[in-house]
């Protein structure tokens, strides 16, 4: 055999496809990956410490900045934690609104995430820009209800900050008319492409037991063949009232994660349809009027609440000592925990595969570094 020398390469923190300021210290033998060491912390913002200084309401806009693609879901998870802690009732209409926003977030997240992954694979942005087009439409809806496109800050303890009106519902229905076409187009673009199959099948395989050992969640876990979805396992909000399926992969490779995400977008669409149908009228109110938002004090104790964010299980753990701000505040960020399986998924594949595998995990550095 030819004697070869191993080469150490830094992929990141400034690199076109590390999805932010993530750095991979990669040891390669030719093109084959021998070792990978993830290095992060470049975007550390002291989020958890801030959460212990802020009052409960002050912390709500900070949760937007965790996974900045899905601020609605972050708000929901945080609001649910504080509601559990303080024992706040949430009106039914607010629950439905939250579900609608969550599912819209899921669609926009998966659309762009899969676009970015195909971009990493070298498909020159077409899939990405089609996803971005749908994302823009959804962000317009978010802007209408919350006033901001990405940093929505929409949930409040016991409800949401503003009600949705008829205009929103008509516009949402118009938007949803276009979505199935988008799903079909997106699938039709590359789903059975020979090159995509060659690049994605049996690449970055994460076996079921390893996925469980790393406590990976979300589409990555479901791609590995574990049918675990918090919307089914522990139905929060009003998710027990909808009929939807949980797509599950069989191999646990990049292609499975790709398929799972496309199928999840279709399921989200079904949930949206049902939620719009069942949406109760405004008589019940959209927020619990008894809650003092600004001076909310939770009794001493602790609470953990979680939601199925598009990236996996997003949980907030809050310990209260009876004052107006948290004593201890911890975020269980799905991106961070899914990322821990990266090195094991990448070993033995080539550099070209590493960026695709990273794209298929779908990380957001705001959530990883906090």
């Amino acid at each position: 055999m030819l004697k070869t020398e191993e080469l150490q390469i830094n992929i990141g923190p400034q690199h076109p496809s590390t999805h932010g300021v993530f750095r991979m210290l990669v040891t390669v033998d030719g093109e084959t990956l021998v070792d990978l060491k993830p290095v992060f912390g470049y975007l550390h913002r002291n989020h958890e410490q801030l959460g212990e200084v802020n009052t409960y309401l002050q912390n709500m806009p900070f949760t937007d900045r965790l996974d900045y693609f899905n601020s609605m879901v972050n708000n929901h998870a945080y609001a649910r934690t504080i509601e559990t802690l303080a024992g706040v009732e949430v009106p039914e209409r607010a629950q439905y609104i939250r579900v609608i926003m969550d599912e819209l977030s899921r669609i926009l997240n998966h659309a762009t995430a899969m676009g970015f992954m195909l971009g990493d694979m070298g498909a020159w942005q077409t899939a990405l820009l089609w996803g971005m087009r749908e994302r823009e439409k959804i962000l317009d809806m978010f802007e209408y209800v919350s006033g901001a496109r990405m940093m929505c800050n929409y949930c409040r303890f016991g409800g949401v900050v503003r009600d949705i009106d008829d205009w929103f519902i008509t516009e949402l229905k118009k938007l949803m008319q276009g979505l199935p076409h988008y799903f079909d187009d997106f699938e039709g673009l590359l789903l059975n492409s020979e090159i995509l199959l060659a690049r994605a099948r049996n690449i970055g395989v994460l076996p079921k037991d390893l996925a469980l050992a790393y406590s990976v969640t979300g589409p990555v876990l479901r791609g590995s063949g574990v049918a675990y979805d918090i919307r089914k396992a522990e139905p929060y909000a009003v998710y027990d009232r909808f009929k939807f399926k949980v797509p599950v992969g069989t191999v646990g490779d990049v292609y499975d994660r790709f398929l799972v995400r496309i199928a999840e977008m279709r399921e989200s669409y079904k949930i949206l349809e049902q939620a719009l149908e069942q949406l109760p009228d405004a008589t019940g109110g959209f927020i619990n009027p008894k809650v003092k938002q600004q001076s909310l004090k939770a009794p001493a104790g602790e609470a953990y609440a979680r939601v199925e964010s598009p990236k996996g299980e997003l949980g907030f753990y809050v310990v209260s000592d009876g004052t107006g701000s948290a004593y201890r505040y911890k975020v269980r960020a799905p991106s961070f925990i899914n990322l821990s399986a990266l090195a094991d998924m990448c070993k033995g594949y080539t550099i070209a595969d590493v960026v695709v595998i990273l794209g298929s995990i779908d990380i957001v550095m705001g959530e990883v570094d906090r």
Partner: protein
Amino acid sequence: MADALTQLGFASWLSVLIASIIKVTLILVGGSVGMMFLTWYERRSISYMQDRRGPNRVGPQGLLQPISEAIKTMTKEDATPRDADKIVHFLAPVVMLGATVLSFAVIPWGRMFPVDLNAAVLFVIATGGLHSIGMMMAGWGSNNKFALLGGMRGVAQLISYEIPQVMAIIPVVLMTGSMSLQKIVEAQNDFAGLGWYVFSPVGLLGFALFFTASLAEGERTPFDIPEADSEIIAGYMTEYSGMKFAVFYLSNYMSNLAVCFVTATLYLGGGNGPGVDALGGIAGGLLSLVYFLLKSFALFFVMVLIRATVPRLRVDQLMSFAWKFLLPLVLVNILSASFWVALLRWDQQWPQLTEWFGAPSTADATNWGRLAIAIVLTLLINAGAVALIMRLTNRNVQKHLYTTDEELALGLS
């Protein structure tokens, strides 16, 4: 052109010199201006495929965008890394561009030939092969790991794909009996200018193979591995900025253009088309130029379509595609081209063969009968080879995904 100048009263050496200078200027200006608007064309077409507008602000329809970008790159700082091999780093873009411009010398513009070389086909391939030297120089001279990886990938890719590319031309050379591009164009002028090689089974397969291999030679998607931006930043171009980067870019696009020109000449009949012969003279020449550019830009549009759609291959997949897929098909195509020539041109092309072996058995049949036999035979061989290799490389596509809607256990058994 030199003859016309001599008739005007110039000394013969002077008229050759003037004619050469005019030709060189036309090639250089035509090539680089053509490249500029090629970038505009590519960006605008991709934009429409992606539901956006593309550059439309500078000039009418954004046509002056490439000029503003040329000014931008020229005024940018030209940085050289401290530990780079300065001479090699400087020379790499020059070598790349030089090789590309050389290939333009023999490319016919319709029926107008700058230089009619009798081994023009070899010349085009050889100048294309020089690219690997430029890439290696850039990759090595930059003293950057990404550049080195890109340069290595580039050289490996170019060397692998030159073989199917050259061998895909052999059928054309066999069928024409010449390596001169002019002769090749003339040979495709039958049937009122529509006797293009692409309409024969041999030419069709050859066209597909040559164009695919050329995509790899020109580093176009899905073979843009040496400059895969999502993996190794910009490959061998990583450490280049300003004018040197612009020269790399220019060279890339010019070589893509050259590939389109060569493909159009070899397989799509060059400037041949209905009406060219009927018009004749300067009008016919201009019509042939229009035909030629239309064919070339249609080919470039195919490149753009591919770029906007498919992901890129991995390095090992690229290699196995070249050696396990393209090469066998190319060899089969040479075989069927030999049958084609043997059936159709035996007595005309190589009279000595007729002397040695006697006239071909179908010599007394009409030309049409021979043509039909040749088409059927080569079609059978080529279609059989394609079907066989597709079958051999086929994978079993299993159903990956299933969905469940029962109340889920945690799945943690």
